[in-house]
């Protein structure tokens, strides 16, 4: 639709929460947008309620290498499909808390942590959270009722009340109970992370992308892998080099570029776009691109309960206890954590829950699947400079791009938090008569990838400014979780969307004033 040499178009890289939202905001306001997406476009009929099948359909399976605390063969679990990780997300949409955006001021100096305050405060982001919640139809906001509670939720709630917790409900979810805004209602299919066959769960695939297409200002180029950002001597991005579906190299000229590839791909693209002026990667004069990689502390507890639960029935994360999300160093760690519902397929449990076990002791547990309940812990992860995404010096993938290396180092705060949180979770399930408990620790690949192009006021210590524009390159924006200076303990997607809505407003304002 748009010509490759049309230098009036905006190029958005990625079509997930950040890219899809940005593209639609620009297109709705008359800006011509080309969206480059590495993955294929699925039809709604391609989405089936089956974890095993969907994993093969939309997961980013190109080689990535994990080091240290990252899983070696599969360090991060992101998506390669139109809609990006909004196909895989569980649609929980908690806002960050004010103190979490002022982590350095609140937590103080912590050895080994590169803590900072965000360059913006919660009050500045709040209007955009509100806009995002309306856009997504988040339950518990805008008069939209909470989802009904599943069996697994009722177990969580009962156990939490036994421990004296009070702030418990079926979570703020971007899942429709009733049809709304062209999306269906929730049938409690379960396994939201396999994609939602009814569209009850918000995904850019069938919201922002289709809305943008109706404007006539938007062109989606799926199966197009961005390989390099091109910059001129004036520190301006001039275009994006990419490989199209046939493997042919193309260059799309650009007025400005928004990169939203999810932290691993956003990092790789910047680091791979070296110039004479930026020998360490574009927009990387600070040396911070790829550093301070954060992913949340994620563990789970599975319990064999005294009666049937059938925890696979129903929305995955529609149930949360917020009492421990506060900052209270008296617990022996900094930051807080959520306790929320989660469920697993027999295959996932078989492969993770009883490592090294076999024989009857294994099958006896699996045959009690009906009675299983599970709770997930999601806690704040502190920024560690050497937790870092880099490019492998030799290994190349099928695009000829250097393979991404994800090096993750646990901060000692993580273990203290995990010990405390798992103990709380155990006590919850024990109070209900659980007969056996299983820890799932260090088994999950990272689904939340953040911090590798952090925002900040100082160009020497951060990659982007308070708008997510790179300090080095005036027309280059980062529009995904890479921006987070710290991560709090909340699921990141709604914050990505709020940041991008705010960023889009800023960009449109710049365009109005002929400054972009």
């Amino acid at each position, binding site marked *: 639709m748009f010509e490759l040499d049309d230098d009036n178009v905006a190029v958005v890289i990625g079509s997930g929460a950040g890219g899809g939202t940005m593209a639609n905001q620009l297109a709705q306001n008359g800006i011509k947008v080309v969206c480059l997406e590495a993955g294929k476009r699925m039809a709604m009929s391609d989405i089936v309620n089956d974890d095993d099948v969907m994993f093969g359909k939309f997961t980013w399976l190109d080689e990535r290498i994990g080091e240290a605390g990252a899983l070696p063969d599969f360090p991060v679990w992101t998506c390669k499909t139109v809609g990006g990780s909004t196909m895989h997300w569980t649609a929980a949409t908690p806002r960050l808390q004010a103190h979490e955006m002022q982590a350095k001021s609140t937590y103080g100096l912590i050895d080994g942590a590169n803590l900072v305050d965000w360059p913006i405060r919660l009050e500045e982001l709040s209007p955009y959270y509100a806009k995002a919640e309306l856009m997504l139809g988040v339950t518990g906001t805008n008069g939209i009722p909470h989802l009904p509670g599943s069996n697994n939720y009722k177990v969580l709630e009962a156990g939490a009340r036994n421990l004296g917790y009070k702030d418990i409900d079926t979570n703020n979810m971007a899942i429709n109970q009733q049809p709304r805004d062209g999306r269906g209602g929730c049938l409690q299919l379960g396994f939201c992370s396999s994609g939602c066959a009814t569209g009850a769960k918000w995904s850019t695939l069938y919201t922002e992308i289709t809305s943008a297409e109706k404007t006539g200002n938007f062109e989606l180029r799926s199966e197009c892998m961005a390989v390099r950002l091109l910059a001129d001597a004036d520190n301006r991005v001039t275009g994006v080099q990419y490989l199209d579906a046939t493997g042919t190299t193309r260059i799309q000229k650009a007025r400005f570029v928004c990169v939203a590839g999810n932290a691993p791909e956003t990092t790789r693209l910047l680091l791979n776009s070296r110039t004479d002026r930026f020998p360490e990667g574009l927009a990387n004069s600070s040396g911070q691109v790829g550093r301070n990689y954060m992913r949340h502390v994620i563990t789970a507890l599975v319990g064999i309960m005294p009666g049937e639960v059938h925890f696979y*029935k129903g929305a995955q994360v529609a149930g949360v206890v917020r009492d421990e999300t506060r900052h209270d160093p008296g617990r022996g760690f900094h930051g807080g954590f959520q306790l929320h519902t989660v469920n697993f397929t027999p295959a996932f449990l078989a492969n993770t829950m009883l490592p090294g076990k076999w024989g009857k002791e294994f099958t006896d547990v*699996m045959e009690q699947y009906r009675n299983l309940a599970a709770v997930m812990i999601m806690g704040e992860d502190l920024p560690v400079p050497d937790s870092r995404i880099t490019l492998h010096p030799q290994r190349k993938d099928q695009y000829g791009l250097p393979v991404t290396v994800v090096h993750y180092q646990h901060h000692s705060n993580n273990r203290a938090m995990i010990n405390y949180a798992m103990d709380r979770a155990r006590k919850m399930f024990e109070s209900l008569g659980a007969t056996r408990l299983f820890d799932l620790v260090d088994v999950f690949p990272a689904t939340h990838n953040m911090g590798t192009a952090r925002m900040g006021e100082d160009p020497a210590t951060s990659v982007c400014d308070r708008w997510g524009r790179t300090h080095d390159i005036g027309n280059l924006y980062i529009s995904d979780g890479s921006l987070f200076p710290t991560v709090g303990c909340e699921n990141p997607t709604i914050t990505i969307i709020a940041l991008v809505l705010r960023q889009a407003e800023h960009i449109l304002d710049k365009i109005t004033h002929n400054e972009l």
Partner: protein
Amino acid sequence: MSAISRRRLITITANVISVAAVAGPYLPALALAQDNRTGTVPDDGVDAEALATLVHDLFPHEAIAAEVYTGIARMIIAQEQGAAGDLMLLQTGLRQLNEQAGGQEWRSLDASQRLQALNKIADTEFFKTVLPRSRALLYLRPEIWQLVGYGGNALQQGGYLTRGFDDIDWLN
């Protein structure tokens, strides 16, 4: 399977998260294994019945039919066929089991003797390969899902909104 090597996918799915994918990307190979169930299996030199017994002994579910375990064994053999495969690993491993069987065929021993022999080879590469592979494949089987009470794809039935997602009756 151009974007990712077969070997790497097996590693991811069997050892890392499982998450299951084993079936999806393997469907062509697996279908082939199923089609060849009678007679036309390539001469791989692997005793499929012994391997099926092994898979059973690793994950013994009384209510699961022997054919299901045989199917898993055939899938494992199919995965190891071709240039990237390692049929030798399977052949050697089964031979090691027989060597622990005091001159008999391992699979003809009674259950407790089989277990004894199995424990003796638990440190071998063969055992460490077959264990996660069997597990990843077996727990994707609809027969297992039915046994343990997992519903699988619920879209055809309209999900669980009216089918017991909130029917828990033992909580106070």
